[in-house]
C-alpha cells in the first residue's frame, strides 16, 4: 500500500476506471501548533461506501470538518469531481457536491420536518425574492415540486407522516435519519455521515444499514462514513480507512483491516484482537 497512491485498494472494481468523486492529497491541519490531522490521503469512487474508523480523538470529525470547509486545511488539497476546493467555503463545498450529517445532531429544531428537508432543497429551487413576495407562478410551481421531492425523500425512511412535526420533537433515531434526508436533499455526490448509528439500538442499526445501501444504489452516490459500530462498518463498507493520532495507519477492504496488526494495536494496545468484527 504505497503512501502516494491513495487509490488502491480502496476503490471497488466497478469504480476503478472512473475518476474518483473525492480525493484528498496530503491534507493536514494544525491547531495552534498542534497537529490534529496530518498527511491524509484518500480517494473515493463515485458509488463507493467507505468507512473511516479510529479510536476516540483520532481526528475523524476533524477530517469531516476539513472536507466540508468548516476548517480550512493548513496543508494539502482536496478535490471534488476533479475540482480543487482550495478557495471554497462550507456553502460552496455543499454546492460542489458534498453533504454531511453531524455527530451532535444539528437539525433546525423549531422548524417542521418538512421545512428541514426544504432547506436542503433550497438550491434546487430557483425563484427569486420578487417572485416570492408577489407569489408569481414560478413560486407555486417551484414550491410544489420541492414539496413533492421532499416527501419522496422522507419516504426513504418512512417519515412522511412526521412531515409537520417539529424536528426537535422527534425521537433521537428519527432525528438522525432526518439529518440524512436533509443532506440528501442537497443533491450531493458524496454523502458524509458522522456516526449515523450512534444511539441507535441493534434493530434500528440494521434498518439504517439497509437504508445506506439503498441510498447508494438509488442515487448512485458515494457514502463516506465515520462509525464506531464495527458490525455496520464491516458489513456495508467496501473500503475502510483507519485513523490514529491524526494519521492514516491503514486502508483496505474490511477483511484486510480486520487482520491488520497496526489496527489491532491502535484499538486494543499490543497483544489483542479486534472483537466483534
Amino acid at each position: 500500500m504505497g503512501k502516494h497512491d491513495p487509490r488502491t485498494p480502496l476503490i471497488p472494481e466497478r469504480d476503478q476506471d472512473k475518476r474518483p468523486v473525492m480525493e484528498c492529497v496530503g491534507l493536514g491541519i494544525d491547531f495552534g501548533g498542534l497537529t490534529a490531522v496530518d498527511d491524509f490521503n484518500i480517494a473515493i469512487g463515485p458509488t463507493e461506501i467507505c468507512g473511516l474508523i479510529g479510536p476516540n480523538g483520532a481526528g475523524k470529525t476533524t477530517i469531516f470538518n476539513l472536507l466540508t470547509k468548516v476548517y480550512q486545511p493548513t496543508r494539502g488539497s482536496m478535490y471534488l469531481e476533479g475540482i480543487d476546493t482550495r478557495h471554497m467555503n462550507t456553502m460552496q463545498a455543499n454546492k460542489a457536491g458534498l453533504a454531511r450529517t453531524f455527530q451532535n445532531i444539528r437539525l433546525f429544531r423549531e422548524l417542521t420536518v418538512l421545512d428541514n428537508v426544504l432547506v436542503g432543497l433550497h438550491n434546487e429551487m430557483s425563484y427569486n425574492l420578487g417572485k416570492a413576495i408577489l407569489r408569481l407562478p414560478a413560486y407555486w410551481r417551484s414550491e410544489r415540486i420541492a414539496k413533492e421531492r421532499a416527501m419522496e425523500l422522507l419516504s426513504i425512511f418512512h417519515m412522511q407522516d412526521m412531515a409537520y412535526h417539529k424536528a426537535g420533537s422527534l425521537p433521537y433515531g428519527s432525528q438522525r435519519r432526518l439529518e440524512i434526508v436533509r443532506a440528501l436533499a442537497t443533491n450531493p455526490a458524496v454523502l458524509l455521515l458522522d456516526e449515523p448509528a450512534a444511539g441507535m439500538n441493534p434493530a434500528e442499526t440494521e434498518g439504517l444499514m439497509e437504508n445506506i445501501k439503498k441510498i447508494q444504489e438509488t442515487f448512485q452516490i458515494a457514502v463516506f462514513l465515520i462509525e464506531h459500530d464495527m458490525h455496520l462498518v464491516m458489513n456495508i463498507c467496501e473500503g475502510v480507512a483507519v485513523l490514529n493520532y491524526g494519521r492514516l495507519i491503514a486502508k483496505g477492504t474490511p477483511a484486510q483491516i480486520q487482520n491488520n496488526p497496526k489496527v489491532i494495536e491502535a484499538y486494543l494496545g499490543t497483544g489483542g484482537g479486534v472483537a466483534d468484527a
Partner: protein
Amino acid sequence: MLYVSQLINALQLGSIYALVALGYSMVYGIIKLLNFAHGDVIMVGGYIALFSLTALAFPPVIAALITVAGCTLLAVIIEKLAYTPLRFAPRLSLLITAIGISILLQNLAQLIFTANPRSFPTQMLIPAGSITLGGIQLGFVPLITIFASLLSMAILTFLVQKTKLGKAMRAVSEDMGAAQLMGINVNTIITFTFALGAALAGVGALLYAAGYPRIEPTLGMMLGIKAFVAAVLGGIGSIPGAMVGGYLIALLEVLVISMGLSQWTDGAVFLILILVLMVRPTGIMGRIQMEKV
C-alpha cells in the same frame, strides 16, 4: 502645560471607565452575559452617595462604605432574582432580562427621585484643593480618583490571582462544568463575581459623582455603554484588558474634545468599537474562542 492637564483629565475619566469596565468584563468572562444593568447600579450608587452625604449627613468614609455596600447588595439581589433562574436559558433571554432590569432601575429612579438632575456635593466627599507639582496644579479630585482606582484594581488583581476564591473564579470562567466537578460551588463563585464587579462599580459611582457632579436616572446608561466598549476594546473577559480599554477610551474622548469636536465624542467611541470588532473581535487582550462542530 495644557497637554498635561488634558492627560490628567483622561486619566481621571479613564480610571472610572476602567473600574466600570472591570465589572462588565468579569461578569462576561464568567457567565457570558453582557450585564446591561451594571451602568444602572452605578446610577443607584450615585443616589446612595448623594443621600448619605446630604440627607443623612454621614462622614465621607462612612458614606463611601455605604455606597459600595449598597451597590454590592443591589447587584447580588439582581443576580439572585433575575439571572440565576436563567442559568441554562438561551443567552439572548439573559441579555433581554438584563435590559429589562436596566429599564426597571432607570424608571424606578425616575419615579422616586424624578427625572430632574441633582447636583452632587463633591466637597463633602473630597475636600476642594490642589497641590502644585513642578509647576503643575493637580486637583484633589482627579488625584484621588486616579489613586483610588489604581488601589481598587490592585486589590482586585490580588484577589483574583492570589486567593483561593480568585482561583475558583478563573476556573469557573475557563470551564464551568469542569469547575463544578472539581467541587467548586459555581453559584457562590458567580454571586461573588457579581459582588466584586458591583463593589468596583460602587467605587466608580463615588468617583464619577465627585468628578462630574450631576446625578440623574439616566446617568448609568452612557457611562455603562462606554465602559462596556472599553471592556470590548481591551478584550472582554480579560482583567488587564478592561483597564487598558478604559484608559484608551478616555484618552480618545479627551483627544476628540481637545480638537474642538466635543459633539462627536460619542460617535468617535462607537466608531472605534465598530472598527475594533471588525478587525479584531477579541479585542486587544482577548482570546479567540472557536465553536465546536
